[in-house]
């Protein structure tokens, strides 16, 4: 667990700025990062940490902003084996389950 990320989450919550903690909870096949990898997404769409880069990260970020609006945590299923991934030139393939947890606000 990355203490810098947790520290930043605490700072944001203390300032009353909502954010989302994204945690990879399961990977199948060849994914860019392993389970336990985390990323923080602020309400302004800024990110801290990386859970894979490229398209995966972009869609997680987008989904996180929806979760923030909704205020309920969810498991986001990300399929990197889909054709779109190949079209985008993504190298990894594989499936990731990402837990998106809204914090503070």
């Amino acid at each position: 667990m990355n203490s810098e990320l947790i520290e930043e989450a605490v700072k944001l919550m203390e300032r009353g700025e909502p954010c989302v903690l994204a945690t990879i909870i399961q990977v199948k096949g060849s994914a860019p990062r392993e389970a336990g990898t985390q990323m923080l997404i602020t309400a302004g769409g800024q990110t801290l940490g990386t859970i894979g880069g490229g398209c995966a990260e972009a869609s997680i970020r987008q989904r996180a902003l929806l979760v923030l609006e909704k205020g309920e945590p969810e498991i986001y299923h990300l399929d990197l084996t889909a054709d779109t991934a190949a079209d985008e030139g993504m190298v990894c393939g594989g499936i990731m389950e990402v837990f998106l947890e809204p914090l503070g606000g």
Partner: protein
Amino acid sequence: MDKLSFFRHLLAALEGQEAGVAATVVKIEGDVPGVAPGDRYLWSTGRCYGSLGPAGLEAAVAERTPEVLAGRRPLLETIDLEGGSVTLFLEPALPGPEIIVLGGGHVGQQVAAVAKLAGYRVTVIDDRPDFANRALFPTADRIICKNFTAALQDIKITPATFIVIVTRGHRYDYECLRAVIASPAAYIGMIGSRRRVRGVKERLVEEGVGEDLLERIHAPIGLDIGAETPTEIAVSIMAEIIRVYRCGA
């Protein structure tokens, strides 16, 4: 309990060098009262911190924490309870790895830079103000300008500590090694030719240090990649440390 106090507590545990397991409820199936997705618990030093969920949940998690800590890997577990099931994500909350660089010379400077780049916490120790300073170590987390033995006495060495001995001479190498040899550090590496290393080890044996302790020392330091420049040597040392950190050997 609210998220902010939980995360403050988690952060304190991480910074306090306490090993724990953080559990997050990620999914609930059926009707399990007293628990919701996003609920968090922290197990540390045998105690559970966080909102206590339904009966049986705490015990089921406590049972799995040793495995998570030993493997240093997270675990996704579905626990059957009355009325349904709860899926938890259990992650090790371990102090981040720290590298102690003993010696602020050319190699020490490069080790500190590469270690920081790789995301490790970095502490540099040297007894010379001309070497233990911010100008030479712009990214280090701590710079301690003190006699090696005295500085090492003030530092907490844990199983997440990696020690790199790159001082300017075998006298200091010996002092440092003697101070850390029986510590719980994950890694102790010492630079020097085989002859210099042998000399330091022989002196420790004469002092009564056991052979088993001497075997832990990584010397010559670093993976053999034919490194020559200080930066190349730093990369080979960091490669060795990453192997120990990630693979345990």
